[in-house]
């Protein structure tokens, strides 16, 4: 006797139907890209150094991210959302979805950073990854995001390679780069120290150090300077005395420290201890230059930074409306002014959210298209453009100097000059950025 019953038929067809429907559900337009948000919220992944030598910068980045999320969800005073030239953000999350976030610890190591980004994408469903306080890390994570099909909004990364030979269609950088530092600094250095100078470079031995050194050397040599030597120092160096001592009798009258973070603090301290700043060489006062400055680092170097020139992406003492709004929100919430790392990560988060709103989707290809060639203002750097060809932001660059008479512990740098965008701009195929290609945007899934 047949066991075929009506109930059995319904059961079987329901099962088969569900089975057949499954692949359709997975490939449905809803999920045409990696981690398409389905519920009432969207998850962003903040990948910053929470341990390791850049942990303080990472902590400041994280504060800025949290502030950005608060503002996007309609909390706080709205910060730069009020001054941002684009008015697509409404304070109701992104595309009506509440913004949530997960955090990862990069430990300032490429492999750890990739692992935490991967986990945030695969386990937590992050639709965008942002962060980084080292170019090595940023480039590694950018590559991962390209493969995974999510957008990467770079945090503090200054190597030319991030938007040069290692650029990726899914990656976007608001922060400036080594070339821009060189182009902004060289005229100021020429004006202050003259054309006839002999520079000695100490350079951190990794992608950022190499590209910055190359940029500064080219820019200063174009102004007539001579480069006496370039010595690569291991990233793990803590005592720079044996690298600084040879500078004394090298005939150089300028020392360029292509160092960042703890390296910068230690090499600068050694240079000052060895009396370099009090020396007179070739009948000129010996000078020290730190091309990439950070207020957090400058504070670590204490008295030693006074009068030393460098460049920075942004500084809290600027007087534009965007800066004032951001410093007010951040300062009120945390009790101290934000660093340039905090600024760039806050701006990147708003820019991403705004691009989603304008594109009407979280799809990386749509978001990327909305960011490419996007011109905006009111974010603390004056008129800015995300260049479509390499996903690098072009804007003014600040030349700063260690302040001689600081009025507070935050007041360690003074802005000497705001170098206009035209002076720091370069062609997409500039030799320092050549090689590599953006490729196509990858929506994943």
């Amino acid at each position: 006797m047949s066991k075929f019953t009506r109930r059995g038929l319904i059961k079987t067809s329901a099962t088969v139907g569900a089975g057949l429907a499954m692949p359709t559900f997975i490939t449905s337009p809803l999920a045409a890209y990696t981690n398409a948000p389905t519920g009432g919220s969207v998850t962003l992944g903040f990948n910053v150094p929470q341990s390791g030598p850049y942990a303080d910068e990472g902590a400041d980045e994280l504060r800025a991210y949290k502030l950005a999320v608060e503002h996007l969800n309609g909390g706080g005073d709205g910060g730069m959302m009020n001054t941002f030239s684009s008015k697509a953000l409404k304070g109701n999350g992104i595309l009506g979805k509440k913004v949530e976030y997960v955090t990862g610890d990069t430990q300032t190591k490429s492999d750890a950073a990739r692992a935490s980004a991967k986990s945030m994408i695969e386990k937590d469903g992050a639709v965008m990854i942002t962060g980084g306080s080292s170019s090595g890390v940023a480039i590694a994570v950018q590559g991962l995001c390209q493969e995974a099909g999510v957008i990467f909004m770079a945090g503090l990364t200054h190597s030319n390679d991030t938007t040069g030979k290692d650029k990726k269609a899914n990656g976007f950088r608001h922060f400036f780069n080594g070339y821009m530092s060189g182009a902004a600094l060289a005229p100021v250095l020429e004006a202050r120290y003259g054309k006839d100078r002999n520079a000695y470079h100490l350079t951190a031995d990794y992608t950022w150090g190499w590209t910055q050194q190359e940029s500064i050397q080219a820019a200063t040599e174009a102004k007539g300077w001579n480069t006496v030597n370039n010595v690569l120092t291991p990233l793990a160096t803590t005592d720079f005395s044996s690298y600084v001592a040879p500078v004394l009798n090298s005939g150089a009258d300028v020392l360029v420290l292509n160092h960042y973070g703890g390296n910068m603090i230690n090499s600068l301290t050694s240079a000052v201890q060895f009396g370099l700043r009090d020396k007179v060489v070739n009948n000129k006062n010996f000078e020290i230059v730190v091309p990439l400055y950070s207020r957090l680092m400058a504070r670590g170097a204490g008295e030693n930074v006074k009068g030393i020139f460098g460049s920075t992406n942004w500084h809290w003492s600027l007087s534009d409306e965007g800066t004032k709004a951001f410093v007010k929100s951040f300062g009120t919430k945390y009790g101290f002014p934000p660093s340039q790392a905090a600024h760039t990560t806050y701006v990147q988060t708003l820019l991403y959210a705004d691009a989603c709103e304008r594109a009407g989707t979280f799809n990386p290809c749509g978001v990327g298209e909305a960011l490419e060639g996007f011109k905006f203002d009111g974010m603390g750097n004056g008129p800015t453009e995300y260049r479509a060809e390499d996903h690098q932001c072009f804007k003014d660059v600040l030349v700063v100097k260690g302040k001689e008479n600081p009025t507070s512990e935050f007041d360690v740098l003074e802005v000497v000059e705001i170098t206009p965008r035209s002076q720091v701009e370069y062609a997409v195929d500039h030799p320092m950025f050549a090689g590599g290609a953006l490729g196509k945007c990858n929506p994943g899934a």
Partner: protein
Amino acid sequence: MDAILLQILNGLDKGSAYALIALGLTLIFGTLGVVNFAHGALFMLGAFCAVSLQKLMSVSKITIDPSQLDFLGNPLKVKTPYIVEWFGPNVGNVIIDWNVPLSIIVAIPVMLSIGYIMERGLIKHFYKRPHADQILVTFGLAIVIQELVKANYGANPIPTPAPDQFVGSFNVGALIGLDASYPYWRLIYFAFSAVIISAVFAFLRFTTFGMVVRAGMADRETVGLLGINIDRRFTIMFGIAAAVAGLAGVMYTPINSPNYHMGMDFLVLSFVVVVVGGMGSLPGAVLAGFLLGILESFASMNEVKGFFEMLYLPSIDQIIIYLVAIIVLLTRPRGLMGKAGVMEE
């Protein structure tokens, strides 16, 4: 010649720190037979004694000055350290300026106690366990201490300058007809470590306590059978070793601003120093410390780097110490001054 003199001085300076840490490591290994991977953390804790005292001395009275504004446009909170309030600006500021030398006084009892507590609280439970267990537990302890320091003081280096009188450099070369200026504080660091090293040796050589300790190092069981409580003396030696590392850390702060992982930076090299010097040999540790310090300095000279690059050995400055360690251990497996029977059972 000037450059060579400078690199010798640099080497002696680096060597001072290596020697002081390695001396403590050897003392602990020689007395308690423990391989102490937390020794770098003790060096770091010493440095943070100076940082803490600096913080303590800058505890300030806050007054609101409506005539000045802070970065948010609110009336400025002016901070005046209590020390300046109490002693007046002249004396108060000098006390604050002399923070690092004053920290020595604070660091000695603090580090002795930390060493004592560490030994009684944790290390003593691992005497009879294999060396691998000791390494794991002390390494774990080092990480815990590091993270605690980071949680309280942040990850960035904290400037802890030397007194104003010792800022700047002294032309050492002029004494022998050369031109080579060397920072005052680094010269002081070298002299200071020479004094500490001599004091430790004198203590072990010329005091009854030292004699008992040395006897215990040679034959613990017999000394015990003679009715001497050798364990207690060894605990004190652990405290002394911790204090030596701590003092090395305090005095190091003006050279490089301290941060939470400075101990780890020195630990690995100090172990190489101990092994090259010969496990358990105090003079060996000191000798190897200075030797490797000088070698490291010379290896970072451009001429030397260039020469090794021609031999297809780039970045010689990073590997020289390990290279020399391999050569020494291949030719003298017990290290430069190692004795038979140590770590060989």
